[in-house]
């Protein structure tokens, strides 16, 4: 997708950005867009382009006003610069807003006037999430707060536990989103084999928040001990459910094609690709109400970590 034309606003304000949205829409011939939400992305300069691109792709499924917010150096006089665009190539509007100086400490004052009226707000931290997203000034504006423990820049091993401890309704983590295909396949396996699971194991890279969540989910649902083993990846490489008739085993050594083994059945290949950010984001934005299953899993992990 080629970059659409962007209007540069230097030393601007929220209301000027809002007027630019209206102007840009008129320039594009006032297309009907039926946007359903505002997505706020709190992002570093160097990763902003990739994050905005992912959001634009996800907005094909969920037309949104996408507001990228780059928090710069908080010293000195406040200044807001923005690039505003609309239309070409995606459904919705985007603005990439750079804050520096004093205003960095008051980002909500910039974002609040730009939220679409009477529709949900989601905020996404592609890497560096606050320890308590709901208490963050931008996080507090949103119904959905999306973190990504696997992308934490430091203390990677602890990032997931930090997020689980801070869990409140509306929080979610892309590490959880990533395992939906695994969970679907495991659930489908037990649809076919009506067997009691006596034990389970999850093998993945040593640091893998997704594997920890998958193990906690299996533990929570199956009430059995789940062994967590390390491999060289990529990501999760094997999940085994032990039953009296033998193991149900899904192994995926290459991150793409898995082999599905089950008792008394022939081995079968099944595509189980690691999904890209746009797909993960699109799944995450499909439902904005509380994810009860994730809530239960974070509780498990909190107990285990305590």
């Amino acid at each position, binding site marked *: 997708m080629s970059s659409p034309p962007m209007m540069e606003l230097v030393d601007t304000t929220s209301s000027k950005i809002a007027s630019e949205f209206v102007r840009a829409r008129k320039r594009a011939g006032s297309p009907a867009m039926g946007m359903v939400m505002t997505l706020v992305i709190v992002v570093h300069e160097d990763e902003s382009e990739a994050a905005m691109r992912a959001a634009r792709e996800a*907005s094909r499924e969920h037309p949104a006003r996408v507001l990228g917010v780059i928090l710069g150096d908080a010293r000195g006089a406040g200044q807001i610069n923005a690039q505003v665009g609309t239309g070409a190539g995606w459904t*919705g509007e985007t603005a990439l807003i750079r804050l520096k100086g004093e205003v960095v400490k008051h980002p909500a004052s910039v974002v609040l006037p730009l939220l679409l009226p009477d529709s949900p707000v989601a905020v996404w931290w592609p890497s560096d999430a606050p320890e308590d997203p709901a208490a963050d000034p931008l996080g507090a504006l949103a119904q959905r707060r999306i973190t990504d423990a696997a992308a934490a820049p430091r203390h990677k091993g602890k990032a997931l536990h930090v997020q689980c401890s801070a869990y409140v309704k509306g929080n979610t983590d892309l590490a959880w989103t990533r395992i*939906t295909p695994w969970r*679907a396949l495991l659930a489908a396996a*037990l649809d076919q084999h009506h067997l009691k*699971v006596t034990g389970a194991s999850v093998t993945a890279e040593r640091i893998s928040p997704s594997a920890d969540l998958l193990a906690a989910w299996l533990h929570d649902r199956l009430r059995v001990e789940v062994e967590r083993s390390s491999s060289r990846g990529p990501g999760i490489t094997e999940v085994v459910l032990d039953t009296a008739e033998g193991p149900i085993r899904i192994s995926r050594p290459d991150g793409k094609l898995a082999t599905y083994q089950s008792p008394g059945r022939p081995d079968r290949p099944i*595509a189980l690709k690691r999904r890209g950010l746009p797909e993960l984001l699109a799944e995450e934005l499909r*439902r904005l109400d509380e*994810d009860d299953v994730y809530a239960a899993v974070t509780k498990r992990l909190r107990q285990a970590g305590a």
Partner: protein
Amino acid sequence: MTWTNPLRDPRDRRLPRIAGPCGMVLFGVTGDLSRKKIMPAIYDLANRGLLPPGFSLVGFARRDWADQDFAQIVHDSVKAYARTEFREEVWKQLSEGFRFVQGDFDDDDAFETLRHTIEELDRTRGTEGNHAFYLAIPPGFFGAVAGQLKEHGLVDPTSDSWRRVVVEKPFGHDLESARKLNGVLAEVFEHGSIFRIDHYLGKETVQNILATRFANMMFEPLWNNNYVDHVQITMAEDVGIGGRAGYYDGIGAARDVIQNHLLQLMCLVAMEEPTSFDADSLRIEKQKVLASVRLPRRLDLATARGQYAAGWAGGEKVAGFLEEEGIKATSRTETYAAITLHVDTRRWAGVPFYLRTGKRLGRRVTEVAVVFKRAPHQPFSASSVEELTQNALVIRVQPDEGMTLRFGSKVPGTAMEIRDVNMDFAYGGSFTEDSPEAYERLILDVLLGDPPLFPHHQEVELSWKILDPILEAWERKGRPEQYGSGTWGPASADKMLARDGRVWRRP
């Protein structure tokens, strides 16, 4: 004891519905339907992770092919028509389950081979005896194939497996033939195992009609004869019959489109709220609509039909219907059909439903327009509301999926001048790009055994009961009127509405 899967939780709405172990046998491998719709949809389903591990696809055709040749056909079709990106690992998963059986429909050996193939798949791929037979072949062959399937023990599932059959329109060409066709299938399959595909019902926009009507407060109160003047349902195509003369001649627009797509659309627009959205509740409400349809007394005045004449359509010089290859110069098959229907219920009494369809019309569009009555009193002077027509709610089914609301608004300026404005809703690109295509949804529903989106035989019969008298009247009455290609149909269709004091929307 019933088994409860501990990994399933009704609150866990991220988990998609994945079909259980199963396979599909496809008859009519080389046809357009198979190559352009069914095969790509199967690949897309696999790509979305919605097919079970071990899913197998058996092709059955006369060609002298090996499994690899069949795989090549599927490969080409997927490359050309699939909506999701091509991924080698998905292809690998799928293609291991491809088999090809060569034979004619009267060839006992071939069906014996088919049985062995299915048994082999059950052993090596774990399809567990669950197979859907997709008859992408002309209905004339249904009887032969169904008979063979029965004779060779292919339709007798063991206790915990299933066999289903999938058929496409046309479901007969009149009531009698529809009954006969159903009889042929019902002799072999029980009625819950027969899936009739009307791909319109798989479309997001069509399902959205129900959401719009029954999930909202603001539309349903207006949805009756107090406020609605009439309803226009249009399915227009800009193309001619192309290479389908063999199929189209003798069938015509009414049988091809009105009997299934348009009457189904009408059901969804006109029906009462179902008690739930399961198959039976929906079917009951749809049947009630079809059963309460009354035809106008003067069918000659309340219907119209036509054939496209040579001319210019969209900047191209095109041939007329009677000059198309394979069509006799004396053909009386209509390429345009418009009918008036009344629904005798308290809700719709006095509100005519106008249904029209045709080929070589102005543009390709399918829409439902609910046209409202005029306000009973205007406080404005007659001259200021001169440009104001009737309010309308238009559900755009395809293309440019969405909804349009037309209402009056003041023209900016010092004078009080009111004119029509349109408010457009387009749910982004999501209806067209990322959401599953109709065939994906319907094939998945077949494999899951989920019947709400498939018309029941009762509905098919009721539809023919509506259409048969019209077709008979047309049969008695000369030739269809010629209309210019690229226009909006014959003059008689305009007169038909003019008699009621109405005009067709230009969609």
